[in-house]
């Protein structure tokens, strides 16, 4: 079993499971940070990142998502390559210009299924992604 360990990020004396991952556009990539949200189905990122990657969202699926405060936000959903640690795979990612929370969100769909285990070690302030080759 292979694994990669990410330390939680400290913000104002709170430790949060925010991890770096790479989003790949047609020609360029960006390292971005996302809050690993096991309670979310979809991964939602700021639309600014899609612009930075020069992603073509013409054929993206338009969908509304319910966010933490109960409101609906519009987003554009595409399949695209992402990389967590050394593992690169295709995943559904939604982009929205209404994600006004200061965090990108990494949900379960396509991510938690790809890895065999994702372990939140609260006492050690770290998150472990495990997979079989």
């Amino acid at each position, binding site marked *: 079993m292979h694994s990669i360990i990410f330390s939680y990020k400290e913000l104002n004396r709170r430790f949060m499971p925010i991890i770096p991952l790479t989003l790949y556009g047609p020609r360029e990539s960006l*390292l971005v940070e996302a809050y690993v949200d096991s309670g979310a189905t979809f991964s939602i990122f700021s639309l600014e990142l899609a612009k930075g990657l020069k992603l073509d969202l013409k054929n993206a699926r338009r969908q509304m998502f319910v966010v933490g405060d109960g409101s609906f936000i519009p987003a554009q959903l595409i399949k695209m390559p992402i990389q967590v640690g050394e593992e690169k795979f295709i995943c559904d990612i939604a982009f929205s210009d209404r994600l006004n929370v200061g965090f990108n969100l990494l949900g379960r769909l396509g991510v938690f299924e790809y890895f065999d285990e994702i372990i939140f070690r609260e006492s050690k302030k770290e998150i472990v992604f495990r997979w079989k080759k």
Partner: protein
Amino acid sequence: MRYHNPNDEFLSRHLSEFVKEHGGEWVIIAGGELIGFAYKENLTKLIKKARKLHPADTPLVSPIPKEEEIECIL
């Protein structure tokens, strides 16, 4: 194996300070150093600058949460 990336490590070291001083903006880091802060309207310009300064690196681009957003996280 523990994840290591100089850009991510820079962010981890300075994130709380960024929240205090630049909450609501974006930060761009490349080559293990700060490239700058930008509001979303100017983000593309700063990403271009990062790629120009560090062409072999993948720049880190991240929104900086505001203090009240951290308090509101469930």
